[in-house]
């Protein structure tokens, strides 16, 4: 018996390749442990520690990016994690979201007079889950990352204990999130039953070989369908989007920024990786499902956003329609055969990075505006007259909203152009047309907010105060939006060989 135990050999771990995860973990533990043992730190320091941790993870990810460029993608920890450009770019987007959101949260909590370390520690643990998800090459590792991310997000949504809406949002998110996780896990179990493995690369091999595993197609297809339902809840695809507006509205605004950026990026990238890596041989089966989900998500997201009166709900629906755009890229990938996944994947990677910066910037401005209004409300009325009282802030929000609408010379145009081009290049014209029409409808939503800011007069004018850290965060988001919008080649050149996913 003892002999058997001593024979156990763990996988070799390339510690440097997982260093971004370790840094995030260290930051989270530091904040929780030291933060709970010491008296209240001076204003802004919790946020700074979190921001510095996220920056360190970004720097390490950039080193990893250069390693991959020189020596190619590879699998880590016995095939559990994939190290490739797609994963590293998404990790950078998630860590950048943590960085910006920490800065904004620091000001927000100072305004609420409840600056505590837990929130930042939860951002960092959520980021760990997100980074694991985007790199996961094993469905169970993916599930663990998903739960690490989701459990942190449930707590973050409910983190404002003074507001009943925040707790309501937390509970709704928790019940529906847990429900979705169970569906996802059942899908994993059935896929495991059909293929005999949970490794994405091995699933693909098993499905392509007729000898090793007795294949059970019904089991497999039901499994893939259940996983898609689970993912659908997490990235709020129509018809699984019902929780999104409520949770986005009820959560503290910086937390909403984090959910809409890091949470969504992680789940979308994981969704794309699972389908592109594990099931390319079944693209004829899941392609049409993605087509329908994408079209529904685009249409409902854009149309329902128009009738909302609360800015956070509008932006929640707009984030739903953004998920639809990303699925357009995935649908394009489903028309390609296995080794060459095509432009779709590059377009998705570019989209998620730009989208993360955009959405954090937008919600940062909403945070600042809502905190200056008397009751912290985020109705459209709160934005009236900002153009006169605070033109610089209004201009920043205008740039961000124009980018979300996909106006040329902003990053949003680069992102949307990429996915639509990918769809057109494989002959998926119907979806491309739906996407473009929905972009026009969604533009109306953003125009409504802009009209409110610039053309309407405030009923009781208040001057919006923009604290220092929030200014920095908004400035970073706006500059990314404009720089990539004017010089898209800065990002597009980087992502030119991104379609090589790790396979061994």
């Amino acid at each position, binding site marked *: 018996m003892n002999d058997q135990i001593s024979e156990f050999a763990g996988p070799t771990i390339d510690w440097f390749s997982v260093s971004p995860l370790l840094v995030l973990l260290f930051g989270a533990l530091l904040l929780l442990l030291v933060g709970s043992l010491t008296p209240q730190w001076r204003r802004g320091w919790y946020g700074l520690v979190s921001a510095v941790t996220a920056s360190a993870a970004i720097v390490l990810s950039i080193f990893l990016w250069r390693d991959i460029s020189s020596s190619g993608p590879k699998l880590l920890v016995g095939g559990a994690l994939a190290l490739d450009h797609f994963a590293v770019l998404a990790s950078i987007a998630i860590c950048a979201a943590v960085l910006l959101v920490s800065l904004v949260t620091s000001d927000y909590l100072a305004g609420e007079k409840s600056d505590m370390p837990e929130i930042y520690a939860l951002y960092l643990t959520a980021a760990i889950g997100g980074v694991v998800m985007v790199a996961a090459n094993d469905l*169970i590792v993916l*599930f*663990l990352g998903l*739960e690490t991310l989701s*459990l942190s997000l*449930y*707590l973050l949504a*409910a983190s404002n*204990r003074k507001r*009943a*809406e925040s*707790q*309501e*949002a*937390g*509970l*709704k998110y*928790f*019940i529906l999130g*847990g*429900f979705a*996780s*169970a*569906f996802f*896990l*059942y899908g994993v*179990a*059935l896929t*495991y*039953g059909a293929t*005999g*493995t*949970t490794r994405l690369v091995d699933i693909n091999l098993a499905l392509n070989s007729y000898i090793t595993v007795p294949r059970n197609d019904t089991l497999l297809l039901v499994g893939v369908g259940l996983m898609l339902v689970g993912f659908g809840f997490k990235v709020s695809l129509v018809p699984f989007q019902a929780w999104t*507006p*409520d949770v986005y*509205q*009820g959560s503290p605004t910086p937390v909403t920024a984090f959910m809409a950026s890091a949470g969504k990026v992680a789940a979308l990238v994981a969704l794309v990786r699972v389908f592109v890596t594990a099931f390319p041989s079944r693209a004829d089966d899941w392609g049409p499902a993605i087509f329908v989900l994408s079209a529904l998500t685009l249409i409902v997201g854009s149309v329902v956003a128009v009738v*909302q*009166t*609360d800015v956070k*709900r509008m932006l929640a629906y707009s984030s739903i329609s953004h998920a639809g755009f990303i699925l357009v890229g995935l649908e394009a990938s489903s028309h390609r055969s296995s080794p060459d996944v095509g432009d779709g994947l590059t377009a998705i990677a570019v989209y998620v990075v730009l989208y993360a910066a955009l959405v954090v910037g937008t919600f940062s401005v909403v945070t600042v505006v809502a905190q200056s209004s008397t009751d912290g409300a985020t109705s459209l009325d709160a934005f009236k007259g900002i153009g006169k009282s605070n033109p610089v802030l209004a201009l920043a929000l205008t740039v961000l909203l124009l980018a979300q609408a996909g106006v040329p010379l902003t990053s949003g145009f680069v992102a949307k152009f990429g996915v639509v081009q990918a769809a057109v290049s494989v002959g998926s014209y119907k979806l491309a047309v739906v996407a473009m029409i929905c972009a026009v409808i969604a533009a109306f939503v953003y125009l409504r907010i802009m009209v409110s800011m610039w053309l309407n007069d405030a009923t009781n004018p208040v001057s919006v105060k923009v604290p220092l850290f929030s200014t920095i965060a908004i400035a970073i988001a706006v500059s990314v939006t404009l720089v990539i919008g004017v010089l898209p080649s800065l990002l597009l050149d980087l992502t030119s060989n991104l379609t090589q996913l790790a396979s061994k």
Partner: protein
Amino acid sequence: MIGFALAPTASWYLVLSAVLFGIGTFGVLIRRNPLVMFMCIELMLNAVNLSFVTLARQLNDINGQTIVFFVMVVAAAEVVVGLGIIVAIMRNRSSVTADDLAELKG
């Protein structure tokens, strides 16, 4: 004594786990008490565990049984977080049903 032998096969367990999963799903959809909804989610996770063990046995592969431990840990963590949120709400209100939580709508 019994004329025919009813030896349970793997598919019996798979059917049982599908039924349990269905009961859990149904419960989340129709029950209005957050605690009961939450218990139904746990039932769904444990139904999946039964599937994993059965399939692992069928495939003669130990990994499926190892996965169950991971799922149990996740379920335990979910209990901690979920009960924390429910207790926080209970402190502010005397009772909670899902219908009371309707301040957020558009």
